[in-house]
């Protein structure tokens, strides 16, 4: 799993759902939780939290311009590629640290992804977990 350390900068709550904004360096992640500041004490602005998401939930876009609904989009360069029979692991160097993505080997081939190439790593809002 990808684990990044950040700081909560905004909390928007409706009923028992909250959208939390977390700052890591100059980048802001957003996540939706079934949790509110009342139900989880660590949900407080300025609190340090870990941002956690699976490698298999990281979508890769070639280049930097994409019209997609995903809110968490961070650009980086490919720092490593490990090819398997069906899957491939990409290490992406970004301003928030290394993000690992596991996508199909076929996609790597179709997009013609190479070392040093600029890509965008994208994670859906509902795929990010927080931990103290």
């Amino acid at each position, binding site marked *: *799993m990808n684990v990044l350390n950040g700081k909560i900068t905004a909390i928007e709550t409706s009923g028992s759902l909250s959208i939390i904004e977390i700052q890591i360096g100059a980048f802001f992640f957003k*996540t*939706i*939780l*079934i*949790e509110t500041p009342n139900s*989880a*004490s*660590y949900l407080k602005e300025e609190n340090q939290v*870990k941002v*956690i998401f*699976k*490698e*298999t939930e990281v979508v890769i876009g070639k280049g930097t311009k994409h019209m997609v609904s995903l809110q968490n989009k961070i650009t980086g360069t490919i720092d490593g590629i*490990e*090819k*398997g*029979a*069906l*899957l*491939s*692991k990409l290490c992406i160097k970004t301003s928030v640290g290394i993000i*690992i993505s*596991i996508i199909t080997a076929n996609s790597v081939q179709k997009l013609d992804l190479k070392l040093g190439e600029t890509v965008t790593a994208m994670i859906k809002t*509902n*795929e990010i*977990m*927080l*931990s*103290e």
Partner: protein
Amino acid sequence: MIQISVQKKLLAADGEIKLNVNISLKKGKLTTIYGPSGAGKTSLLRIISGLLKADKGRIVVNQKTWLDTDKKISLKPQERKLGFVFQDYALFPNMTVKENLLFALDKGQDKKIITNLIAITELESLKDRKPENLSGGQKQRVALARALVRKPDILMLDEPLSALDPAMRNKLQDYILKVHKEYNLTTVLISHEVGEIVKMSDTVLILEKGEVIKQGNPFDVFTNKQISGKFQFTGEIINIKKEDIIYVVTILIGSSFVKVVAEENELKDINIGDTVIVASKAFNPIFQKVK
């Protein structure tokens, strides 16, 4: 309410330790004592039962004083209303299941409790067998029923399930929970299995070198950090297998096996047999009606 305050010097493997415990047990609750070997867990149970003398202490069970070293009060083990189940079954080999239970009756006590206990622990078809003709799990069910014959104020279980295989263990846990609720027992369990503790206990105490170092709701005690995933279980790592460039990890949760995909870095300090928390967001799982 049961108040226990005991002190005793104990000789452990790595030198002398001082058992120093102040706890209260709430009626109807199941409390588990967890901790490394030699922490004083069994000694604590033996002091409560009167089999081991405390250097200093006071035990008050539902307003009745079992022990008060200052006032030189110490009830004999047989005067303390408690039930004890150990890892080995300690049944009388020459008696049938029913006779083992009858033997535990107090003089003049109504025999109806035996019928009730046989029913609730589902021993009806086994009641005329001798212990040698029972499986480990069945013997432990008899030992549990026997410990309840005198309607104990405290039921003490010293690793009662550690000799059993996982499936049998799971069944016995359910029997213990059933009688614990049915008879509104105050139960103290010693266990090393985090999964078992989370499943069974209201409260867990971690005992280390004779002192309670942590206590509370088992989930809070065993998970240092809160994680926001709502689909969350405790399980045991059964198998780790590399498939292509990822790993498929098989985890036993309750009596079900689940598989989780992991990446190499995640498995650095994870070994087969480890207890882990499995978490996913509530947004991922789907369900379908089966009935």
